[in-house]
């Protein structure tokens, strides 16, 4: 019988007094001590900007610590590059997969360590047998010769795991591995992780989903403000404990969805079809309506047409067919600014590329949809004083943590950046707010804040179309739920007594409702 974790077990990787100061003066890690033992699943949790990712980058040789030392299997090491990390037996599965889209799964897995045959060419047969061995041990089914581009996320993640294993990884770092998966896929991933630790591998698991931490981790290290708060045995802490350790204060989930009689119909989508540039039928006969004073969620796994649907509804994507009726006018094919003017606001999925102008100030970003209107400008010039005044008000109301209203948006953390976008999109005159993944990848407290705001505008009578892959979020705040699977609406549910697992079945296409049940969503 092995001793319990946290005792005298062999240490797989240790950070001793690690401090990392970036050239711009940001302290990302401050005297961080952490010790991960062989054969454990060690979760590292913390809000955005708490320093988890920096620490992992140091482990993987992407960043060098300013001071402190790293030990791998008891030996002091300097890791200068990912190559050296790999040689030490450290593998990393990044949140954004590091795959070459046009390469096959096999080519991606063996990239850089391709087996050769005569004439220097790659031995594809040998490739297949090497990968096959590993895949068998982990019980993976992977279409080796299909282009990665066409594979689902779950499979891509397995490809990343195999990539690390064939390189001899003994310590596997997974950065937010579950953020792109369905509950069922997450369970599969956890099975894989269990098999890995049974094979004596060590798993470091970064996440902000605490139910998952409780489910899989042996020990949990909590980080806050670049420091380690502590390492805890899983059984010693509850989810609420962890959240409070993460944010450093009491925390209550206090969003309540009061029953509310929805108002008039504001938006009707009828028989929307969309064929992508390459001819793929991305959206199939989408029909639904949206009422004032409700939150209608569109749930589904990423890549089932949500992105396209939102872009079409907001005028960012052309060439769809069908009708989008806004106050009786068909706005299909209209320009984004026409649609905005007609009263639809949009919190885009990609706040960095689409939601903000990174090099402009918070104030400027806040008025980017109304800079030409009173009181921000006269006909010719813009009135800075009013802009700043407005920005100050917004920063306060939406709890944006920033030095001043003229701080460049680039300098903000993900959560604060999103609050700027949300502030803009919720305070215009629009009656409809399309929120695409409004809390994706941002910390617990900011997420909670944004959800509260969505609930608030719903109560004030605005209509919210919430596109989300986060089932907790969907169940927490929506009134009705449409499930999108392969471009079709496969279920229309009222948010009453349904569970994540129920939704998961629809999202995976295992279950679907009859046409009649779904039609109800249009005729409400």
């Amino acid at each position: 019988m092995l001793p319990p974790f946290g005792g005298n077990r062999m240490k797989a990787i240790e950070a001793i007094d690690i401090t990392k100061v970036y050239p711009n003066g940001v302290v990302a890690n401050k005297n961080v001590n952490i010790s991960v033992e062989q054969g454990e699943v060690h979760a590292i949790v913390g809000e955005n900007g708490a320093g988890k990712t920096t620490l992992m980058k140091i482990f993987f040789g992407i960043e060098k610590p300013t001071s402190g030392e790293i030990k791998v299997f008891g030996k002091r090491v300097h890791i200068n590059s990912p190559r050296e990390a790999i040689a030490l037996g450290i593998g990393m599965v990044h949140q954004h997969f590091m795959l070459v889209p046009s390469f096959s799964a096999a080519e991606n897995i063996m990239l850089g360590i391709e087996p050769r045959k005569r004439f220097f060419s790659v031995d594809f047969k040998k490739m297949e047998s090497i990968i096959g061995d590993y895949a068998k041990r982990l019980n993976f089914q992977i279409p080796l010769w299909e282009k990665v581009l066409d594979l689902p996320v779950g499979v891509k993640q397995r490809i990343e795991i195999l990539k690390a294993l064939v390189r001899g990884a003994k310590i596997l770092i997974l950065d937010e591995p579950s953020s792109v998966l369905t509950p069922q896929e997450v369970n599969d991933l956890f099975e894989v992780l269990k098999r890995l630790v049974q094979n004596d591998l060590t798993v470091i698991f970064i996440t902000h989903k605490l139910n998952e931490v409780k489910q899989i981790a042996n020990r949990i290290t909590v980080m806050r403000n670049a420091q380690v708060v502590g390492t805890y045995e899983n059984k010693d802490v509850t989810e609420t404990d962890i959240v409070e350790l993460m944010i450093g204060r009491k925390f209550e989930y206090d969003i309540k969805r009061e029953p509310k009689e929805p108002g008039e119909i504001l938006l009707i989508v009828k028989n929307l079809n969309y064929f992508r540039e390459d001819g793929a039928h991305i959206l199939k006969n989408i029909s639904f309506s949206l009422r004032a004073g409700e939150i209608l969620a569109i749930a589904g796994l990423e890549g089932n047409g949500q992105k396209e649907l939102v872009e079409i509804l907001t005028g960012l994507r052309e060439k769809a067919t069908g009708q989008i009726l806004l106050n009786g006018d068909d706005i299909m094919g209209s320009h984004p600014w026409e649609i905005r003017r007609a009263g639809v606001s949009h919190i885009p999925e990609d706040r960095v590329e689409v939601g903000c102008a990174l090099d402009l100030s918070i104030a400027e970003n806040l008025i980017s949809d109304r800079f030409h209107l009173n009181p921000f400008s006269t006909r010719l010039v813009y009135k800075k004083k009013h802009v700043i005044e407005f920005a100050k008000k917004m920063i306060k109301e939406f709890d944006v943590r920033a030095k001043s209203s003229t701080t460049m948006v680039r300098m903000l953390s993900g959560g604060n950046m999103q609050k700027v976008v949300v502030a803009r999109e919720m305070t215009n005159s629009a009656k409809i707010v399309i929120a695409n993944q409004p809390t994706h990848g941002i910390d617990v407290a900011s997420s909670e804040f944004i959800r509260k705001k969505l609930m608030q505008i719903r109560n004030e009578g605005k209509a919210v179309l919430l596109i989300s892959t986060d089932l907790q979020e969907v169940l927490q705040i929506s009134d009705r739920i449409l499930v999108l699977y392969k471009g079709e609406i496969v279920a229309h549910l009222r948010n009453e007594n349904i569970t994540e697992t129920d939704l998961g079945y629809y999202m995976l296409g295992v279950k679907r409702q009859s046409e009649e049940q779904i039609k109800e969503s249009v005729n409400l």
Partner: protein
Amino acid sequence: MSDFLNPQFWYSVIRVSTPLFFGVIAALLSSITGTINIGIEGMMLMSAFWGTIVGSLAQNPWVGLLAGIVSSTIMAVILAYFHLKLKTDLVIGGVALNLLSSGLTVFMLYAITGDKGSSASLKSFIIPRVDLPLLKDIPFIGKVLSGHNALTYIAIVSVFLINYLVKKTPLGIRMRSVGQNPDAAVSVGISVTKMKFLSLILSGIFAGFGGAFLSMGYVSWFARDMTSGRGFISIAAQALGGSSALFGAFGALLFGIAEATGITLQSLRIPSEITNMLPFILTIVVLIIYARSRIRSHSRIQEQ
């Protein structure tokens, strides 16, 4: 019209396509790692110059060829150093090298021969022609394919070798991975800088072959700015071929046909100023067709 049935015409198509074959390879090898070599034109010109000068001084065309390739490779090293080490913009670096070559070759030409226009006063040495046994006796085909400059055959063989290198070897796979997703390459320990450096150097070497052919095969002297856009045409031809050296070579042939047609038309008393425009007009037409045939995105959001 009868000209197109004449083996002489097709022989000349292959002849004029030869520098483009090398150019296409140079463009392909640089672009697969995402570092398109705008300096091919200048590297070819440099090689054409040093090839003929050193060849004539050494009284040996092969020494000249070597000198030409060394000169273009040095240019590639300079470009790689500027782009990869000093982080200069690749396009600016390439344009600078092109301007440098244009000026430097004329300056050196004047310094060595006293003539600013061409090296005709030097006795020049030419890479020999090769008759292909057996093949040369086949009617028509023999006349088209046999009796070319040795560099023409090297070009054709290189097209196949490079196609194999890019598609089937570990090096090719790694270079392509760097071009498509550098993060993926880094994540498995492939050095992006090293791959890009290598790809620019290889590009310089093949540009060198192409340039040397111009002054030691195509004609037997160096003339100022004698590459006359072939480096750029090669980049266009490669764009048509995507990541395939074979398709790129077909693109080069297409431009070769245009150039050969232009030469033929001159015998019909059409002014050479007009016929010389043919390859460039074709470039524009082909690029329009290419752009049109590519699928237009429906998204109004600009791709980053």
